[in-house]
């Protein structure tokens, strides 16, 4: 299941870099694409603005199939205060921009599953796939169910 979560995150991160390389975050002294996995970073009391935070919630497993299928609920949280140059009056536009970026990075709704415990990451046999996101109220959260088949050795 970790491979599916890693693959999902890396797919979104790669797509975000392609469509908006300017959305970045300075994290642990390194400038990185503006998307992070909440449970892979230090705990914080307040989420950062202008970046996508991937949060893993529930888990369901269908064991009745030839390959067990895992459904992992993912919430992607984001918020913005707008820009300083407009005194924050553009926060609605900035949030719409993030909405559009999120819709763009979740498509196509699948990505090859990779094993990131190897270097370089090793391609696995199946693909990770997910449903269309369901958007919540401002500050935004978008919930996605991410599916994957369990492979040998996982």
């Amino acid at each position, binding site marked *: 299941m970790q491979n599916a979560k890693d693959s999902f995150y890396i797919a979104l991160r790669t797509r975000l870099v392609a469509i908006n390389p300017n959305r970045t975050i300075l994290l642990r002294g390194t400038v990185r694409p503006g998307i992070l996995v909440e449970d892979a970073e230090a705990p914080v009391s307040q989420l950062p603005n202008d970046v996508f935070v991937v949060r893993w919630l529930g888990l369901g497993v269908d064991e009745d*199939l*030839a*390959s067990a*299928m895992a459904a992992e609920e993912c919430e992607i949280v984001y918020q913005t205060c707008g820009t300083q140059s407009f005194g924050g009056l553009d926060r609605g536009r900035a949030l719409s921009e993030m909405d559009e970026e999120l819709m763009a990075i979740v498509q196509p*709704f*699948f990505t090859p599953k990779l094993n990131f415990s190897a270097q370089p990451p090793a391609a696995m*046999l*199946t*693909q990770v*796939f997910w*449903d269309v996101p369901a958007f919540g109220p401002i500050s935004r959260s978008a919930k996605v169910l991410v*599916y994957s*088949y369990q*492979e*040998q*050795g996982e």
Partner: protein
Amino acid sequence: MSASSFPSPAPVVRRIRAYFAPVNRAAQAPVVFDPSQLWNLNLDSPPAPWMNLGWVQSFARKPIGKSASLLTGIPAATFEQVRESLGAQLSFQFLSWTKLTMALATGSQHMNVLAPASGAFAAADGGQAAPPATVQSGSTSTFVALASADAAKFAPGAIIAIDADYAGSMGYVGSPISGAYLRAPVADVDYIRRITFNVALVSQSSSTGLTLAEPLPGGAPAPGLKLQKVIGLVDREGGSFYQEWSGLFILQGSQGERIFFYYPRLQTVAGAEEIDAPLARNKSTLNRILLSAQFQALPVTDPLDGERVVCYRSFVPAPGALV
């Protein structure tokens, strides 16, 4: 099971995509879909003559062929089965309104409403049309060469229909897509442009001709064909003409597998019908109007073994999936 394979799960799909290609009505020749050559076709850009009609929903296949038992002995028991009738029906809803989706979702011929001539009498499918312009040499499927005076009559955003003048022919008319069947000659010289599928949107107009926003279904128009401006589209409840197309429906699975449903001959079986689909589940007062399409599958004879069939279902497994 080795590490290079995995058990094949039931395909998980989000939606289904529809493609249609015109049956040559005069020759009764459907368009062949060969899964050995087209199994990995580009879903956004299918090879001609297949036309992409986008996503469809509520796709339902219904076999209506019947088998009967041949009984022998006392007490009688089934000795073998025989196929008494062969048939299948298909229904779905289009998620777009275009010339082609409207035509496929109506049980009769589908027509273009041509821009009227000055002082034309009123007619339910459009009055006498304004005089046509003549296509010049040098046209392509996305560019129509015209004399500069003719090109000036068509602004960007106009819809045009291109085809020949009607010259008294009977039987199936319209090429390469038959749009009607005439039992007797009609008096309207613009008749073929009324029923033609050779329509497109003008994106640019210049002194040399018109650039189109989409390729013409009939390909590059020959010099001498005529074009007229189209105001809209019209179809009728009734009439004797049935649309007939080859249909291809593709489901792309989550692991890259593909299911193909290929119907060599599909005839529209019901009149025009629309479905209201609320935009939001609960309190929305807005409805999306979907075109509802129903088809009867007609048989073809498979040259492989002479069997009569109405549909082919092909499956291309996911890479690495056990078969």
